[in-house]
C-alpha cells in the first residue's frame, strides 16, 4: 500500500471525527470545515514522515488547535472543497442548559475556548494541552480557570434550572 492510499484511508476513516472536533473548537460549521481542510492539507504534505514517526490523527488535531488560536489565521479562509448545509439548529441540543452553555462558549476568547475543548472534549491533561498549544502549564491553568468562571457567570446556576437534580 503506498502513501497516497494510506492517506486516503485515513481521511475516509477520520475526516468526520476531525470535523466534529473542529466544530466544537470553533463553534462554526464553516470554520470547522476550513480548519479540517487546512490541517489535512498540511498533514498530506508531511504524510510520509508523520505516518512513520507520529500519530497522524493527533498530529492533525494539534494543527487544528494551533491554527484556530493563531492570530495569523483570523479572517483567512481558503475556498472549501464542498458545500456546507445550512447552519444546524441548536435546539437539537438535548437541554436548554446545554444550549445556553454552547452559546456562552461563543463569548470566550479563542485560547480559553481551545483549552476547555481540549480538556473536556479531548479529555487531555493540562500537561498535554500545554504541549498541543505550545504554552506553559500555568497558562493552560489560567485560561481554563478564566474560561470556566466566565461560563459559570453566564449560565444559570444548575440548581436554579434543574432543581436539585443528582
Amino acid at each position, binding site marked *: 500500500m*503506498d502513501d*497516497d*492510499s494510506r*492517506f*486516503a484511508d*485515513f*481521511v*475516509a476513516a477520520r*475526516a*468526520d471525527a476531525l*470535523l*466534529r*472536533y*473542529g*466544530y*466544537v473548537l470553533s*463553534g462554526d*460549521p464553516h470554520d*470547522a*470545515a476550513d480548519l*479540517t*481542510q487546512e490541517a*489535512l*492539507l498540511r498533514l*498530506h*504534505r508531511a504524510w510520509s*514522515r508523520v505516518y512513520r*514517526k507520529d500519530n497522524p490523527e493527533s498530529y492533525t488535531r494539534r494543527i487544528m488547535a494551533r491554527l484556530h488560536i493563531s492570530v495569523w489565521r483570523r479572517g483567512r479562509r481558503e475556498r472549501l*472543497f*464542498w458545500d*456546507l*448545509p445550512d447552519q*444546524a439548529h*441548536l435546539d*437539537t*441540543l*438535548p437541554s436548554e*442548559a*446545554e444550549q445556553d*452553555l*454552547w452559546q456562552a*462558549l461563543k463569548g470566550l476568547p479563542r485560547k480559553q475556548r481551545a483549552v*476547555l*475543548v481540549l480538556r*473536556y*472534549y479531548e479529555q487531555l491533561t493540562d500537561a498535554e494541552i500545554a504541549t498541543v498549544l505550545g504554552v506553559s502549564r500555568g497558562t493552560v491553568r489560567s485560561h481554563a480557570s478564566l474560561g*470556566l468562571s466566565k*461560563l*459559570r457567570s453566564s*449560565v444559570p*446556576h*444548575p440548581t436554579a434550572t434543574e432543581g436539585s437534580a443528582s
Partner: protein
Amino acid sequence: MNEHLEEMLRSALGHASELAPQAPNNLSTHIVRRSRVRRIRAQALLAAAAVVVIAGGVAVAVRGAGHDATAVNPSVTPSPTATETRIPASVEKVWPEAVWKIPVKLPGGRKFNPRGFVDDHTLLLETWESFEKANAIYAYDLDSDRVRKITNIRTPKGVYASGYAAGGGRIVWQTIDVVHGKPVTSFWWAPVSGGEVTAVATERAVKGSGDKLTVVGDRLAFSLLEGGVFTVPLDGGAVEPVAGAAGHHILRWPWVGTPGLYTPEGEASFQELLNVETGETSRAVVHPEEQNVRCGVTTCTGTRGDHTAFYRLRDGSQERPLTRSSMSGLARDRFLTPFLPNPPGGQALYDLVTGKSGDLGLRPNVKGQSFAVELGFGDGRMVAYPLGSEYVIIDLAKIR
C-alpha cells in the same frame, strides 16, 4: 458546582459535536490535488533552495548558440538503474567540479539567501529586511570568495522582489502589487557591475502575476501565472505577446508550454511545448490513468495507475521506474533528491543520466526534523542549502 459545570460542559460539547458538518466522499482526492498544487506554487513563488535558477541557466542558454534546439530528441539516454538507496559518497566527492561551500553569513554577519547564478562562477545573493523581503542583492565570486553589493532594493509594504534572472550584464526581477484587488506586475533591473535600480517602463500596466522571467538579448521575456508569454524592451516600451504562446508559460527559453506548473485539475504540466524561436512543437505522451505528470524539455515523470512512479522521454519511450515519485518533476530533466534510509536519514542528489548519486549531508536533528531540498522543475540550475556554518552550493549545469 465546578464539577457540575465541568460535567455539563463535557456533555454539551459531545452533543454539539454531532451537529458538525460531514465530510464529502471524495475529500482526500481534493486534498491531495490541492496539496500538490500548493507545493508547486510554493516552490515557484519562493524560488527557494533549488528552484532558483532561472537566472544562470537561462543566461547561458541565451548566450549559447542554438540553445536546446535538439532537446526534444536528446542524445542522452536515461540510465537504466532506478533511484539508489545505499548511502553514497558526499556530493563534493562525487562532483567536485560542481560543488562549493561558502560561509552562511556575509562579512559583517548578515544572513543571505542564494538566488541563482549570474555567470559560471558568480552567485546572486539576496539579503532580507524581514522575512522574504529583500533589501539588497549581492554578487559572490566563488573563485575568490569576494562579495560585492549590486544594489539596494526598496519595495512597499507587502510587495516582494522575486523571479531574478541574469543576462546581458543586467539582473532583472519583478514585484507583484495588488491594485483594485487584482495583481499588477512591475519589472526592474540593475547592472551586474553595480548601480541604481531602473524600472522597465511599460506602456501599460502588466495585469497579472509574473511567473518566470528571462533576459533575451535586449528584451525581457516573461510569462504570467494566468498564462501568456510576452516580451518588452529592457529599456522600456510596448509589451508584445509572443505569437502562438497564448496561455503558455516559460519553461526554459526558448521553450514555452501549457499548462504551466499550476494544474489545479491534476493535468500534466508542460504537456505541450513550443520553441518560440524555431516554431518546433512537442506534445508529451501521457496515459489516461497517470497522475501528477510533470514534464520538462526532454523528460516527464509521474505516477502510474498502480501508484508506481516512472520517468521517460516526452515521446513516451525509454520509460523507467522510480522508487519514489517526484512531485515537482526532475531538475534539468535528470536530477532528483531522494530521501536516504533512516537512519541516518537525509537526502541524496541523484543523476538519472549517469546513475551517480551524492549525499547532500543533511541529517535529521534530535526531533527527527531536517532541512529538505526539493529540486526545481524546468531548468533549475542551482541547489543551495545551509549545512552547519556553511551554505552548500551545487551548480547542476556543471554536472556532465
